[in-house]
């Protein structure tokens, strides 16, 4: 690296990192992100806690209604619906009842099904919880009827558990499909945001220099290529610092994440005794926190580096050609399209990360920073694929930097008319 690139890099990095906006975003970013994820579920949790539904049991079997009343818990308050379903319906419509449950006469013999009526509808959680109560009540009654010995009842109570394990190079690990899909999607979007936002910083930086007409002074001291590289690397270094800070803050928070998640889990729902430990809770919920794979983070950094250089240098070429933001839109369009296409494929990749389509998509240089990272997060990608994808990306960004610097060196001296993509091609061809 020449000393001029270093001088530009230092200045770009220094003056951006010292700005108030940078400091605020770096510190407040994770808090904002976590707030975005935690607040809705917390609100939902509070809402679900606050109300026990009052439900009348219109009992066609004549024997179960007391069992239901006994099964009342903090979520459901069961009352006998002795006046029939007509009365219960009007009570629900008046709002004195939340809903009523109709049990047909042949329920215990397996004829017909229980029906729950309410104004507001059910919702998945409600259905699952109500089904649980129904199962327990009916099972208990049947077992008692048949005078089943205590041991049998206990045997039936202890339901076998299913664990999913993944075979990896480091040995068998708890499969954390849900969590790793989530991580894959988050990292994919994060990569997209990082490349796009830091790339846009570069473009605006170039446009600002052009608009303020400081460029012609600068290029009488520095080669345009050096200025371009210094700027791209300086802003890239700023991005790495910012993301490093975010990662550090998030790491601290995740170390206490188990505690936070278990707050939202109720031991009773998971057939665990109240007061079960945090790890038992998480395990029973099948929500294993994925073990941190250092390789994922290393690849993330490498692919960010490649993807950022690729898009930032092309955006710099766009910035060098225009003076005003609105003129940039048309020239940015092809780049915006290239960076958005992989976003559309993230779900496809998460669902089936090893199909030919997924493999091919994750090798294409303009897509690979996002899609290969998603694949690495959700599955074990063969090393040669990751390496091939990364090398292709490197080759492409070297080419992009070369093309961009040729456009850039002409663009920065052009004022006046709004350039088209054809003009950029012509500038590229200039001697």
């Amino acid at each position: 690296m020449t000393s001029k690139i270093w001088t530009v890099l230092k200045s770009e990095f220094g003056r951006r990192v010292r700005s108030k906006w940078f400091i605020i975003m770096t510190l407040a970013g994770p808090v904002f992100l976590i707030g975005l994820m935690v607040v809705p579920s917390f609100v939902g949790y509070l809402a679900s806690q606050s109300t026990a539904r009052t439900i009348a049991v219109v009992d066609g079997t004549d024997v179960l209604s007391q069992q239901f009343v006994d099964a009342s818990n903090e979520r459901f308050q069961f009352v006998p619906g002795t006046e029939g379903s007509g009365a219960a319906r009007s009570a629900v419509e008046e709002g004195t009842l939340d809903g009523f449950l109709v049990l047909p006469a042949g329920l215990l013999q397996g004829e017909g099904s229980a029906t729950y009526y309410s104004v507001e509808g059910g919702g998945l959680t409600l259905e699952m919880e109500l089904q649980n109560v129904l199962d327990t009540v009916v099972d208990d009654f049947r077992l008692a009827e048949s005078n089943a010995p205590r041991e049998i009842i206990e045997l039936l109570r202890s339901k076998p558990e299913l664990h999913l394990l993944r075979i990896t190079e480091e040995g068998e690990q708890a499969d954390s499909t849900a969590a790793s899909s989530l991580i894959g999607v988050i990292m994919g979007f994060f990569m997209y945001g990082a490349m796009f936002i830091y790339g846009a910083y570069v473009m605006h930086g170039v446009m600002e220099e052009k608009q303020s007409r400081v460029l012609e002074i600068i290029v009488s001291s520095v080669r345009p290529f050096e200025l371009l590289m210094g700027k791209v690397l300086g802003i890239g270094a700023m991005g790495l610092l910012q993301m490093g800070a975010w990662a550090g803050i998030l790491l601290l928070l995740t170390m206490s994440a188990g505690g936070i998640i278990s707050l939202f889990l109720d031991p009773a729902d998971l057939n665990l005794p109240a007061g079960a430990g945090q790890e038992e809770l998480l395990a029973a919920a099948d929500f294993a926190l994925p073990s941190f794979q250092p390789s994922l983070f290393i690849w993330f950094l490498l692919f960010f580096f490649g993807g950022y250089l690729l898009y930032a240098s092309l955006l710099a070429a766009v910035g060098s050609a225009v003076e005003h933001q609105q003129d940039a839109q048309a020239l940015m369009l092809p780049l915006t399209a290239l960076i958005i296409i992989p976003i559309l494929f993230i779900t496809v990749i998460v669902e089936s990360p090893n199909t030919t389509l997924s493999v091919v998509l994750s090798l294409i240089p303009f897509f690979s920073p996002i899609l290969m990272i998603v694949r690495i997060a959700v599955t074990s990608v063969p090393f040669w694929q990751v390496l091939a994808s990364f090398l292709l990306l490197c080759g492409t960004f070297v080419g992009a930097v070369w093309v961009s610097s040729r456009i850039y060196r002409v663009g920065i001296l052009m004022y006046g008319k709004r350039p088209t993509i054809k003009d950029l091609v012509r500038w590229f061809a200039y001697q």
Partner: protein
Amino acid sequence: MGLLSVENVVKRYGALTAVDHVSFEAGPGRILGLLGPNGAGKTSTIRMIADITTPDEGRIQYDGRAVGRWSQERMGYLPEERGLYKKMKVGEQLLYLAELKGMSATAARENVKTWLMRFEAEGWSERRTEELSKGMQQKVQFIATVMHEPSLLILDEPFGGLDPINAELLREVIWNLRDDGRCILFASHRMEQVEQLCDDICLVARGRIVLQGPLRDIKRKYGRNTVILEFDGDASFADDLQTAGFVKVLYRSHKRVELKLLNGTSAKGVLERAMSRLNDIHRFELVEPPLHEIFVDVVGKDR
């Protein structure tokens, strides 16, 4: 302190030949005025000297070597279209620009301080550029051009946006730099500034040099064919002289006219006419034509 030599330089942009076989030299301790109408190829030529672009043909040498990054560090360039980083503080900005010219931070800090004082701009260091007036920004830009002690200076319209007092200050500074042995290239279309400042001129039109040489020689070649008259009274006598075909009126106000003598008209003849029509004449002088007139004459003929 070396010689700048531009030899047979050609620069084409697509079908347009912006600079067409241009050759000139500029020596240390002299100011070369590069002048010409808009679009004549001044900026294209300057950019090649500054090694921002490269010639398609011909060569540009400074101090006996082809220009390149080495000469960029010994050169100060003040472009016509110029600006500064708006949000950066003046001190930080000047240090950055000096460092890009290859100066050490310590030396740069010292020079920045000296030059800010010279331009009566102490205490600007901590101010953002956008807080400065246009004239103040011009001074900062000039400091950026000279603070690394370049031996070759390229000044493109350096007086734009300066009030008369600051223009005077800048003129002094430029002369000092010349006397210090710097080689100065001064581009402008303001003829009175060129006349006042330059030792040599180089007139370009449509990519070609149409006139060049020491300013004094050029003016002498045109001879003393211009009469300046300052007076009290009615200036209409000048119009009558023009109508009669004796002179061409170059400048006319209510108490001053400049007349170019045509068709062998004698200065004495003009004076006699003027005396017969005016009450009082304060000044009568036979001079070389103003540069402006030479410019119009040469460029007009070329067209």
